[in-house]
Every structure is written in structure tokens, then in C-alpha cells.
């Protein structure tokens, strides 16, 4: 089996020739460990695509998550100048905004008044929402427009063709051998990103009716994006739902504000495409694995173990492993970042033993691999799955 076939088998709950290994790497990890500059990796389709493939090959992973959108090919034409600062490189855009690009973390866009843009809940009109892309070149906007355009995007043709360029780029170069996954932000994540987390969470209490109207609209955009990604032949789609764990909301709030809308997204994509869809929710999710399953997802990603989260992998396998594939459970901080290669190998072996029986498990860190995680630790994941097969 190659990586693509191996991942497909695991995601469909059958038994591959060995446990596949595939991690989501933080963007900072690409910045620190690839030849291209952080500015190019963030802003250029080709540079990011090359970085994704380079680290997949270096670490021997069976899949790649394309977790930035394709970029406007003309992005350089919007730049006025680039400065150096203590915080990293600063891109000054022609419209007066600037992007701070740290050498090891995600860039962020600031407007003329030196603040990041967030919408207010009061100004939101649900029917003007469709999809929020937090990683757009120019950050967030409402009503949503791409890049520095002042014209809101029309939902009848919302996603520019270049939005899918990175997927095409990576599939054309690595898609025959490894599994290529795309990312769609869950309606709940989009909502919180647009409003800022505090205001978004308070809105659940202040006006649940309007909140749900917003989420319903954002689900439509997520369906549209997921279908288009599937049409571009991704092997799986990850629903990024980072704020749906117990660190943020209760199981009841999950049932009210997350579950119906993620189910809409998953049902909407699956109505047209038979593509595996899995859900990435961080932190304490041990109390809601069954709720996550009710969204119709095919798998759960992260599964943070104590102390970062509260998921015991063997318990998760017993509870939902008959219907969902599981991916993750290696502590990204205490093992991948701060641990030794031997500890990584031991933890990887523990996870494989706990969850790989009858297939349906992908060896992975729980959340993203931290920027400073030593590459010699990461390669141990692949060594562990090879050793287990042997």
C-alpha cells in the first residue's frame, strides 16, 4: 500500500498494511524548517505547496493537510514595502494595512489604526454571511470580501478559482502517493473568529436565535467550500472546529450551537460527494465523543490526552471506534516539543497498541506539531509505525 491507500483504508475503518502516520504541522513549524521565507509560505500558493510536500517527505507521513487556501497570484502587487522589526517581518500593504509575520508563528493583519478587525454582533445581518476565511490575505472582513477588494463576495460565485490552487498544486505533485486533505472551518469557528472569541461566546447567551441564524448561513458557505474541494479531488476533508470542546462550551451548548450546523455541513457535502470527512476539536472532548459522532463525521482528530485534554485513547476506541476512525492522542507539547525521541517512540507505540486493532487509527499528534518541535522527534512517529508492523 502507498500512503494514499493506507490512509483511505484507515479512514474507511478497514485494516491497512500498517498504521498510517500523518500530523498537522503548525505554520510556524513550516517557517522554521523549510527553505522558503515565512512571508512566501504564508502568501504564495507554490511556496506553501512546496513546504507541505517537503515536510511530508522528510517525516515520512502518509498524508498532507492543506490548511491554507490558495492565494491570489497577484499578491505581491499589493505590497508597498517590507520592513524588519523585533516582532518579525512587516509587510506594509498599499492600502495602509500591515501584516506582522513572526518567524515562527501565524502572520496577522492590522488595519490603519493598528488593530485587528472584528465584526460586532449587533452589526451582523445573518443573510449577509456565507463563509469566513480567517486566513485570507487581508484577514477578516464583514460583509466578507477577498483580499483588499472592497466589494463583498457574491455567494453565487463566492470562492475565487485561485482558492483551490494549493490543493491542485499538491495533488499534482504528491497526490498519487499520499492522501491529500483539505480544511473547512466549522460554522461555530467562523462565527467566533469573525466576532472575536469573547463576543462570540457571549452571543450564545445574549441572542441564541440570531446566533443560530448566523450559524445556519455560515454552514451554507462551508458546504459550498467542501463540495468544491471535493470536486478538486481531495482524499478527505477536515472540519476545523477548535472551539467546540469543554474548555469553551457545555455539552448542551455543543448540541445547540455546533452539532446541527456541523451535521448540515457534513450532510451537504456528502449529498454530492462520497469523501471522508473528519472533525478536529481540541482540548477536553472526552465528554462529547458521541455528540461529535452525531454530526455524521467519519473520524475525530486531536483526542488530546491529559494534561492538555481528557481523552484516554483506549476508552475512545471502545466508545466510538466501531463507527469512527480516530487520529491523534500524542501530546504535542509534553511529548513532541519537550520530550526526547525515545519518549516520542514510546508514546507512539502506546497509541498504536491502544487504537489500531481492526484498523481505523491514524497515528498523529493531538493538536498541531508546535513550531519548535525538534524534527528528530517527529521522525520517530514513522519509525514507530514501521517498527510495529515489523
Amino acid at each position, binding site marked *: 500500500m502507498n500512503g494514499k491507500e493506507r490512509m483511505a483504508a484507515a479512514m474507511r475503518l478497514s485494516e491497512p498494511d500498517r498504521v498510517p502516520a500523518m500530523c498537522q504541522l*503548525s505554520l*510556524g513549524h513550516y517557517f522554521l524548517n523549510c527553505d522558503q521565507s515565512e512571508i512566501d509560505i504564508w502568501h504564495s500558493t507554490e511556496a506553501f505547496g512546496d513546504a507541505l510536500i517537503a515536510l511530508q517527505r522528510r517525516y515520512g507521513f502518509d498524508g498532507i493537510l492543506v490548511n491554507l487556501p490558495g492565494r491570489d497570484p497577484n499578491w505581491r502587487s499589493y505590497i508597498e514595502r517590507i520592513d524588519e522589526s*523585533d*516582532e518579525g517581518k512587516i509587510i506594509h500593504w498599499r492600502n495602509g494595512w500591515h501584516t506582522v509575520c*513572526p518567524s*515562527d*508563528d*501565524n502572520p*496577522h493583519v492590522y488595519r490603519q489604526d493598528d488593530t*485587528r478587525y472584528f465584526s460586532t454582533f449587533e452589526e451582523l445581518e445573518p443573510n449577509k454571511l456565507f463563509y469566513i476565511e480567517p486566513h485570507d490575505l487581508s484577514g477578516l472582513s464583514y460583509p466578507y470580501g477577498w483580499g483588499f477588494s472592497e466589494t463583498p463576495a457574491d455567494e453565487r460565485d463566492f470562492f475565487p478559482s485561485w482558492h483551490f490552487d494549493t490543493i491542485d498544486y499538491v495533488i499534482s505533485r504528491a497526490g498519487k502517493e499520499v492522501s491529500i486533505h483539505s480544511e473547512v472551518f466549522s460554522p461555530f469557528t467562523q462565527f467566533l473568529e469573525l466576532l472575536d*472569541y*469573547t463576543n462570540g*461566546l*457571549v452571543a*450564545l*447567551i*445574549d441572542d441564541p436565535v440570531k446566533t443560530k441564524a448566523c450559524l445556519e448561513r455560515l454552514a451554507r458557505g462551508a458546504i459550498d467550500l467542501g463540495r468544491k474541494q471535493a470536486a478538486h479531488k481531495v482524499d478527505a476533508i477536515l472540519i476545523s472546529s477548535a472551539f467546540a470542546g*469543554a*474548555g*469553551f*462550551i*457545555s455539552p448542551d*451548548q455543543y448540541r445547540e450551537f455546533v452539532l446541527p450546523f456541523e451535521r448540515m455541513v457534513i450532510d451537504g457535502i456528502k449529498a454530492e460527494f462520497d469523501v471522508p470527512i473528519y472533525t478536529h476539536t481540541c*482540548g477536553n472532548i472526552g*465528554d462529547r465523543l458521541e455528540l461529535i459522532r452525531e454530526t455524521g463525521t467519519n473520524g475525530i482528530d486531536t483526542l488530546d490526552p491529559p*494534561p*492538555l485534554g481528557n481523552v484516554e485513547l483506549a476508552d475512545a476506541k471502545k466508545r466510538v471506534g466501531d463507527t469512527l476512525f480516530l487520529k491523534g492522542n500524542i501530546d*504535542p*507539547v509534553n511529548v513532541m*516539543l519537550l520530550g526526547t525521541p525515545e519518549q516520542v517512540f514510546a508514546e507512539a507505540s502506546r497509541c498504536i497498541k491502544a487504537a489500531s486493532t481492526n484498523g481505523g487509527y491514524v497515528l498523529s499528534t493531538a*493538536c*498541531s506539531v*508546535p*513550531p*519548535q518541535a525538534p524534527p528528530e522527534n517527529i521522525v520517530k512517529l514513522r519509525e514507530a509505525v514501521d517498527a510495529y508492523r515489523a
Partner: protein
Amino acid sequence: MSILEQLSEALIVGNATAVTRLTAQALEAGLLPQTILDEGLIAGMNVVGNRFRNCEMFLPEVLTSARAMKAGVAQIEPLLAAAGVKPAGKIIIGTVRGDLHDIGKNLVAIMLRGAGFEIIDVGVGVTAQKFVEAVREHHPDIVGMSAMLTTTMMQMKTVITALAEAGLRDRIKIMIGGAPVNNSFAEEIGADAYGRNASNAVEKARNLINSTKATEP
């Protein structure tokens, strides 16, 4: 139910309008501002903290309680200042570089302010150099750092190292908090305390101030 109990209850359910009204009523009734703060507002927020810790309340409810607390404290704070009540201590608080999450930091700041501390909020994405500059400018008793991301928590160690290199580490206490950190991480990076939630952060800050006073010549 006494007016202070009503005040606590209104805060627990996150009713800022009722908290504003009841705080005003309590003041009109002649209750001391410090009493209203301690036995009404902070007492209510302690209940919120405990329920949050026990997973009986979650962030949306906690944030509405914090909003109500802020409304009450806004009425009390000027009266305490006018009466010459000295702050319990001065704390610089911020979220470390690379991390723009401010929920936890803001909750802790609200609770500390309510508990009588002077708070200098240096914001989010704060570099080690900015923490050093803020310490030089404001001479705090405590520096509080927050991180929500596993990718940014190591910045806390960078800040502590920078404070040491600037010769400032021995003059201050350092507290940390945030989803991915814990007590052993605090010890490992050389912080003086870890606050597991906003209420606990107040307790730890008081302990740090008391320990400093106890060792003063």
C-alpha cells in the same frame, strides 16, 4: 435574601443590569464599598469560578458573569480610590507573543481588579521585550502571563529569561495561566505560581503578595 446575596445571585446568572441596580441600592443603603465588593461581587464570582472548575458552568456563562462583575466594579472602584484604599498590589498582565487569545487574561484581570489589585493590561501578543519595558515603567509586584496555545506557551519561559537578563526577575513574582499550562510547567520554567482559573489566580496573587511582605526586612 439580603441585598448582598441578591447581588451575588445576579452576578452568577450574568445579569449586568441587575448588578448595576443592586450595587447602587447597596450603596444607597449605606453599605461600605469594600463590603459590597467582597460579600456581593467577589463572593458571586467565587461561586462562578467553582462552578466553572466543576464543569457546572462554561465560558459563555462565565463571560456574562464577568461582564456583570465589571459593571458592579465600575461603580465601586472610584469610591475605593476616593477613600484612599490602597491597591492590594500592582500586576502587569498580558498574553504572550504569538498568542492573540484574551478571554482568560481578561477574566483574570476583571477578578484581580475586583479584588483590589491595580492592573496594567499590556494586551495580547506581547513580546518578551515589551514585558521587560512594562516592568521597567510600572514597577509591578507581579507579572501575569497567559497562553492558550500549545504553540505559544514556551514564550513564557522566554519572557522569564528576558526579565532575568534585564536584572528584573528578583524584583517581581511571576504567575502564569492558560489552557495548556499547569503547575509543573510553571515550576519547570521558573514561574512563581500557576492560576488554574480566575478565582484561583486571585488567591495565588494574594499569596504572592503576602509572601513578599513576609520576606521584606
